[in-house]
């Protein structure tokens, strides 16, 4: 089993390397690799169903105990692994076609496979340390894949935004890990939350990390930007697997998060579910609609994890993975047909490309929770679980209505009578096959609810009449609103189009202050700190240059004072002319005349002045020794 664990992580990596080097046949190599890599996961699923559990860990940081890295086989991890591997296989197969005309196809496919490696690591990780490692790698690979179209400005920008947002949230995971280790002395899964502030840090940190990864409000903005990446990437990373890692984290950390942290997560999820739906309704780009839908659905999973426990959340995760991936893959097909994903451009595309439309419809029906599609059952479980919590229930129902509404809106646009008939692009066959498989899965996966709950050992709330009725009414209301042409108030629509201003808020609250602080610090560094150092140097030089002045004026002044006392009466007038004014004029003339060599005026060259200063120096030494003697 240990071997299988490692195989399911490492095989995709090997496949990625092979694909990168494969050249024109990269699609075949990648497909084979992905298929091969899916096998261990399925075997493990079977074994896990038979009660098999395994852990393979090794000490990673030897300085202190408890800092192991390793993989684990248990029900949760294996379910996730199978989901990842299967969706991954389908997407890789699809991508072979999608990237057919792309000169950098090997790199793209290798990137997907490498991502699969990291994602498997994430879901199979044993302990928060390993989880953190893969968590971050997944984020980085995600950024790399988003930026695949590097010449377009949107890709790199979206990648940067995605990575920075998720990494900022990852601070939570870091802090949670630190606090957990400090409090419990271990980073293993399943320990109890430490007391006091450490426990609070653990709770807040984990929830924050999950929110970031799963694009929960108010951090959801990055997911829309991530849509700049190629569509298979969006399908695999930004709908089915990576973004679901946040839900996985919540489920995995159930014991650590019981109580208020889950409550928080639930509220976040519920609000995001509604917010995502609202945003989805306002988007003018198919992929962005789907992205917003993803945040909404992930929000539902948060509610599920908080209200209903692992089985509910994971059930919806799996069902959503299949459905949403199918939707994205269909969107990718439309994208190939019409060379774009804006809804305007796609108007009527469904009529030209019936296969894609069928796949889209299957996915959409599932996500919109139309029975008997898979997500109907899973979402219903969430509704049922939320029944005890009026606030969540209301929000879930609103989100359900919204889900029906935005999918119906998109479907109507896709199926609208086309102004121009463009043929479906050739080479769709692999793409259609892969996408179709997922669409089929999204139909059938409704059945896995019971086995899943058995496997996870967690209750799936019984479906009640109330819950079904409420779900159906909600979906119906949503669909009806679209069919009746109901329009949202303009303010809501504007806000929704702007992502409910979450981005703007982040920009003003975080980004701008940081940028300002950065510029300020840079200027401080350059002008003040460094300037001070340089000024000190210059000052020293000036002191050196001024030393002659000290000799000329300081010592002279002392002598003058003595002289004044002795000879004031007799020659006050002459002294003034000869002494002070002359000296002043001389000094001025000298300073002008030799301004260039100002620093060299230490020595006047006049011996009597040396001698006079020496006598004064002697007096000074006498005083000095006298002082030393007195002290």
């Amino acid at each position: 089993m240990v071997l299988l664990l490692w195989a399911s992580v490492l095989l995709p990596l090997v496949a990625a390397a092979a694909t990168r080097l494969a050249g024109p046949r990269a699609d075949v190599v990648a497909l084979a690799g992905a298929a091969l890599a899916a096998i261990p996961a399925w075997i493990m699923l079977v074994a896990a169903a038979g009660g098999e559990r395994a852990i393979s860990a090794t000490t990673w940081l030897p300085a202190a105990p408890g800092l192991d890295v390793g993989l684990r086989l248990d029900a949760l991890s294996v379910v996730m692994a199978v989901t990842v591997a299967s969706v991954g296989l389908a997407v890789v197969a699809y991508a072979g076609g999608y990237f057919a005309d792309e000169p950098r196809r090997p790199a793209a496919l290798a990137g997907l496979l490498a991502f699969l490696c990291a994602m498997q690591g994430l879901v199979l990780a044993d302990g928060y340390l390993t989880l953190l490692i893969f968590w971050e790698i997944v984020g980085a690979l995600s950024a790399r894949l988003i930026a695949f179209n590097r010449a377009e400005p949107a890709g790199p920008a979206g990648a940067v935004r995605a990575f920075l947002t998720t990494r900022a949230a990852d601070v939570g995971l870091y802090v949670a890990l630190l606090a957990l280790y400090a409090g419990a002395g271990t980073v293993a899964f399943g320990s109890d939350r430490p007391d006091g502030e450490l426990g609070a840090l653990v709770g807040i940190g984990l929830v924050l990390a999950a929110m970031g990864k799963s694009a929960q409000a108010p951090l959801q903005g990055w997911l829309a930007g991530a849509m700049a990446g190629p569509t298979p990437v969006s399908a695999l990373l930004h709908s089915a697997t990576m973004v679901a890692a946040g839900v996985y984290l919540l489920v995995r950390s159930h014991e650590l998060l019981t109580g208020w942290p889950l409550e928080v997560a639930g509220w976040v999820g519920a609000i995001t579910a509604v917010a995502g739906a609202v945003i989805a309704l306002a988007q003018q780009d198919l992929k962005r609609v789907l992205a917003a839908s993803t945040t909404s659905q992930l929000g539902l999973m948060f509610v599920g994890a908080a209200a209903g426990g692992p089985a509910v959340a994971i059930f919806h995760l799996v069902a959503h993975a299949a459905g949403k991936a199918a939707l994205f893959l269909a969107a990718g097909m439309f994208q190939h047909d019409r060379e774009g994903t804006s809804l305007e451009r796609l108007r009527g595309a469904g009529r030209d490309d019936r296969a894609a439309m069928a796949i889209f419809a299957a996915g959409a029906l599932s996500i919109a929770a139309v029975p008997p599609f898979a997500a109907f059952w899973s979402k219903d479980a969430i509704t049922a679980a939320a029944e005890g919590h009026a606030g969540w229930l209301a929000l879930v129902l609103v989100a359900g209505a919204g889900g029906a509404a935005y999918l119906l809106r998109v479907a109507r646009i896709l199926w609208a009578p086309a102004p121009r008939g463009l043929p479906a692009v050739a080479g769709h066959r692999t793409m259609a096959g892969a996408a179709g498989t997922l669409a089929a899965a999204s139909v059938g996966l409704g059945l896995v609810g019971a086995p899943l709950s058995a496997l996870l050992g967690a209750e799936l709330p019984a479906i009640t009449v109330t819950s079904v009725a409420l779900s159906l009414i909600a979906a119906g209301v949503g669909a009806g609103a679209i069919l009746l042409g109901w329009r949202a108030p303009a303010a809501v629509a504007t806000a929704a189009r702007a992502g409910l201003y979450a981005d703007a808020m982040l920009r003003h609250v975080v980004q701008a202050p940081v940028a300002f602080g950065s510029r300020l610090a840079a200027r401080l560094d350059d002008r003040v700190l460094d300037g001070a150092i340089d000024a000190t140097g210059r000052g020293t030089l000036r002191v050196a240059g001024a030393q002659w002045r000290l000799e000329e004026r300081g010592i002279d002044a002392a002598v003058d004072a003595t002289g004044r006392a002795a000879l004031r009466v007799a020659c006050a007038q002459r002294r003034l002319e000869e002494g002070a004014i002359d000296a002043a004029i001389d000094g001025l003339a000298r300073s002008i005349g030799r301004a260039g060599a100002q620093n060299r005026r230490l020595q006047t060259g006049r011996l009597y002045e040396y001698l006079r200063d020496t006598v004064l120096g002697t007096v000074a030494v006498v005083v000095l020794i006298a002082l030393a003697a007195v002290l």
Partner: protein
Amino acid sequence: MSGLGTALVFWPGAAIMLATALYVFRTSSMARAGLLLLASLGVEGLLFLALASEFLGVLQLLMMSGEMVIMTFFMIMFMPDPGGLMGMDMTHDKRRSASLAVAVAVALAIFAVLTDWPAATLNGEAPDVRQIGFEVMGRSMFSFLFAGITILFAMVGGTMLAKHGGRFAAEAEGDLR
């Protein structure tokens, strides 16, 4: 010499010595300055005699007369306006130097008067001249010999500097740089 005798010689002597010394720097004639210095240091010799150091006093008179005559010659040779006919000012920075010198002198004098000096147990006569001989030939012999060497090299050096032409007559102006 008795205390009274000493006083009788000392006070006028000291007055003359200081007055001539001061006038060395108040006159505008080089030659006069040299002669005044000679007078001042000569009178100092007399003071030595009065202070019971006959040997030193005589020696001082001899040395100074020789030295100061030479100095006067030099002055006449190298000074502008040795006779002081043009009344040129040979001083600079007069006030500062005067005030500084006065301050130093006053400070030293006050310090001399106010300090509780060690006093001799017996107000005896001056040291036997023989003792000076013993000192020179005994404990301070090395210093004495060393003074001789110093004289030698002062002579050599003075000549080196003063005599412009070299010993190697052919290239008398033989300074390479």
